[in-house]
């Protein structure tokens, strides 16, 4: 059988290369039929097979004493004590959101929620990491995505508590929508999606199957082009009400021990769900009958049913003979369920349409058969050099601060997060707007801090360092609340890896993530890779490795907020400042370019600073703590004032050479926090800093309703707030 016998156009439709087709024919010792070709096409897509990135991803650390489940399942799980496990994952929905922003974002949220449910966990929080082109041109993307996230999450009754939004030219045609879901489960009720037990029944529950989303996974694995809007049928439509019922029914499944496994139907629909479930058990297979799949419309072919990406569906493996027990739980929530097949031990996924066999493929061929792609990375031209000494001196720090606070990437996100229900669940003890959000674990004193972070500009300038900085910043956000980081989920968004400079970015990104996570002893327990984020072979996005992180505090009464709390507190800068203006927001906003090297990062020093902040929080010294990030110390200081509605008065800053004044105010040196402490805690703070060899400088005193550096500038909180909140209100 030669490649010639299959139409090349047909191969392109299912996104298989002639080489891959040749492998399939070799392995099967026959040509695949239409249904089989479609099934292999979606599972061998980049989105499902990770054929370009798998070899690199193996380098990431994924183990640790508290890890209950690493990558390879629907989501990762980590023990947090008192019998509880936190389950979490981040996933991209970039391509669908580019074409149909509302539904793309909504179904992205829906999909990640189901991943957490499949682990037996109740979802307790959502976060979203978003990137768009500049406003107002990218308003359609921005408005649609924010509305879609709210529309789905609000209806589900799961609070949206955090995330990030950036605006940058490179995302104009390729917005990024990464959704993260965090859930809780008793460790003894953690589920795994393994199709165990020959003869056990496979149930399909939830929504009826329609023609929506066919080839969604393949669509996610090619570049967008001018014909992409014709792919709108590849974007699914969400029904959050149905998912809410599905969620509650799945929670009720814990009342029975008849359930063997739960698996989300996401990309590549039924094909992927069945293959993955069987693929996790050696030698397991499955026999299913598409004729028994409840359908939304007439005339659907077995091909349509196997490839549909209709939302709000789950696969449930149930002990043979106990199907009615499980089905009655779904029926109580008015959900459809149907026994569509059974687990076998022949290692084959066999598909029937009533009596006719329409497909039979080895499970391993589907899940692990895609030939890994050997790509070559070549470092691109280094970015524009930055000669800091050539920059004009800072003219008016106050005016610069106002412009930075009003800039798209630094302005207040309140206008967005008030469109999300961030309180439902009665657990949000640190609301969005500061560093990380925190939720209490009801019935315990435990608090869970969570965040999603990435400064992609740094990654563009140096992907290895940028990835490390993303890990470090996420950790600082967690630590600023008083919690200890415990684990990571990552979403690697990059352009077309067939281009050597993009593949190089991917290699560097993974190496940087791996290096930082190992140094900080943070396992990566789940994640997602989204490639081909470019259009028409150009306008590639910055490499954007979004780091989702979760941390734990033993007693949430000891949590720390970002806003100043009282008058007369000492305001301290913990950590040292350098001339780190490369890739800074200051450079972009005030001088109009993205250049230089990102701030250098010393992970040992980072850890020392973190230890000081954690110890101070634990001892109750901190009235507030805030990470210094984009915009540097002065923007952090302004945010502390604005969040707490408490002013601050500082003596003039006269940095010692070689530190420049603009860098002291707006430089983005990592490993720094702005904290406020009552005066009585000063001796302890000083001795803590000495013990850990960390620089501690007194910036000023809280109080009043202005932010002032004596003789340098003085701004009222009203002026600052007006600038900060104008953009997205």
């Amino acid at each position: 059988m030669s490649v010639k016998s299959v139409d090349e156009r047909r191969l392109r439709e299912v996104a298989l290369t002639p080489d891959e087709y040749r492998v399939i024919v070799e392995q099967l010792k026959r040509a695949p039929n239409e249904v089989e070709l479609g099934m292999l096409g979606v599972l061998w897509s980049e989105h499902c097979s990770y054929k370009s990135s798998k070899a690199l991803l193996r380098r990431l650390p994924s183990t640790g004493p508290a890890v209950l489940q690493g990558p390879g399942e629907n989501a990762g799980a980590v023990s947090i004590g008192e019998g509880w496990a936190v389950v979490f994952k981040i996933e991209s929905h970039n391509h669908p959101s580019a074409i149909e922003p509302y539904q793309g974002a909504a179904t992205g949220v829906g999909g990640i929620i189901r991943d957490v449910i499949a682990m037996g966990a109740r979802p307790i929080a959502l976060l979203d990491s978003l990137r768009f082109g500049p406003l107002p041109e990218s308003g359609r993307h921005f408005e649609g995505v924010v509305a879609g996230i709210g529309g789905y999450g609000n209806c589900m009754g799961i609070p949206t508590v955090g995330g990030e939004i950036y605006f940058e030219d490179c995302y104009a045609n390729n917005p990024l929508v990464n959704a993260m879901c965090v859930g809780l489960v008793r460790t003894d009720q953690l589920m795994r999606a393994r199709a165990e037990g020959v003869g056990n029944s496979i149930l399909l529950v939830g929504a009826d199957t329609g023609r929506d989303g066919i080839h969604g996974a393949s669509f996610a694995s090619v570049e967008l082009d001018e014909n992409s809007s014709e792919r709108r049928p590849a974007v699914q439509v969400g029904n959050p009400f149905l998912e809410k019922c599905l969620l509650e029914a799945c929670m009720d499944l814990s009342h029975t021990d008849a359930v063997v496994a739960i698996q989300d139907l996401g990309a590549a629909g039924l094909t992927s769900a069945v293959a993955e479930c069987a693929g996790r058990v050696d030698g397991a297979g499955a026999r299913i009958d598409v004729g028994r799949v409840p359908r939304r419309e007439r005339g659907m072919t077995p091909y349509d049913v196997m490839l549909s990406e209709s939302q709000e569906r789950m696969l449930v493996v149930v002990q043979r003979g106990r199907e009615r027990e499980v089905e009655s739980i779904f029926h109580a929530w008015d959900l459809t369920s149907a026994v569509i097949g059974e687990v076998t031990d022949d290692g084959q996924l066999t598909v029937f349409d009533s009596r006719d066999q329409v497909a039979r493929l080895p499970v391993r061929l589907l899940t692990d058969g895609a030939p890994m792609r050997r790509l070559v990375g070549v470092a691109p031209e280094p970015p524009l050099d930055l000669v800091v000494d050539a920059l004009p001196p800072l003219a008016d720090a106050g005016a610069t601060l106002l412009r930075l606070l009003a800039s798209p990437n630094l302005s207040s996100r309140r206008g967005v997060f008030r469109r999300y229900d961030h309180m439902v669940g009665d657990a949000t003890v640190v609301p969005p707007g500061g560093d990380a959000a925190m939720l209490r674990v009801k019935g315990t004193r435990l608090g869970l801090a969570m965040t999603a972070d990435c400064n992609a500009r740094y990654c563009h300038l140096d992907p290895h360092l940028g990835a490390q900085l993303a890990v470090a910043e996420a950790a600082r956000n967690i630590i600023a609340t008083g919690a200890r980081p415990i684990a990571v989920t990552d979403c690697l968004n990059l352009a077309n890896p067939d281009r050597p400079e993009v593949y190089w970015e991917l290699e560097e990104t993974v190496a940087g993530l791996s290096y930082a996570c190992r140094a900080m002893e943070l396992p990566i327990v789940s994640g997602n890779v989204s490639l081909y984020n470019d259009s028409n072979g150009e306008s590639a996005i910055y490499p954007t490795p979004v780091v989702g992180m979760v941390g734990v505090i033993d007693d949430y009464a000891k949590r720390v907020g970002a806003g100043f709390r009282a008058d007369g507190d000492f305001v301290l800068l913990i950590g040292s400042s350098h001339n780190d203006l490369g890739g800074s927001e200051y450079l972009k906003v005030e001088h109009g370019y993205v250049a230089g090297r990102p701030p250098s990062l010393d992970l040992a020093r980072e850890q020392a600073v973190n230890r000081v902040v954690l110890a101070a929080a634990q001892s109750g010294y901190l009235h507030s703590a805030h990470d210094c990030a984009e915009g540097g110390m002065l923007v952090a200081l302004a945010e502390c004032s604005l969040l707490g509605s408490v002013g601050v008065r500082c003596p003039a800053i006269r940095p010692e050479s070689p530190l420049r004044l603009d860098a002291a105010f707006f430089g983005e040196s990592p490993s720094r926090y702005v904290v406020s402490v009552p005066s009585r805690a000063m001796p302890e703070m000083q001795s803590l800093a000495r013990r850990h060899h960390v620089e501690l400088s007194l910036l000023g005193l809280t109080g009043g309703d202005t932010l002032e550096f004596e003789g340098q500038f003085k701004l009222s909180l009203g002026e600052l707030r007006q600038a900060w909140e104008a953009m997205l209100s």
Partner: protein
Amino acid sequence: MKFGVVVFPGTWSDRDCGWVVDQVLGAELTYLWHRDTDLKGCDCVILPGGFAYGDYLRTGAIARFAPVMEQIGEFADRGGLVWGICNGFQVLCEAGLLPGALIRNASLEFRCEWTNLLVERTDLPFTSQCAERDVIRVPIAHGEGSYFADPATLSRLEQRGQVVFRYCGSDGRVVPGANPNGSLHNIAGIVNARGNVLGMMPHPERCSEAELGGTDGLKLFRSVADNALKVLVS
């Protein structure tokens, strides 16, 4: 004292209301399923927030036909305490147990934020623990919470003192800037003429513990717990 919390498919504040009743207030709690045809001896029925049946049609429009609503209507007629919060308020309006309707927020956006409420009635079983003209801080979370009624209904409500909560500034002044959704007369909550059916858009169950940002909501739960047994159900 027993609270019943109604669960429609799509309801999500049921667990939060249940948490406050059971864990914070320490009162007896039972959940009432939308298909239930008996109220299990509850002294107060809470219709909580959420998107009952998805609210794809009009908020509360399908929930009013749920079997449990027939029982709740009869319970209210007999003087039983019925308390609709957020979606529950919308359902009570659709069911005709309260006048008026909740329409889309003037901003056309969902709003989740803290509001100040002026308490205008403290003689009710729901508010007896509030001080006269108390200002309480309670969060909202809705996309369709703009209270609307025709002029005649509105003036009847005002004349009979059926407006229980109004959005106000932190100083208690009822001003347009304090109105988060465009409600007529800044109305955040109303009661029926008999005083036993309360509907409110803000979420008192989200501010009954200090760690969640405030405890004003607990005043309402405590009021009900104190008074429910005194309420005469005929």
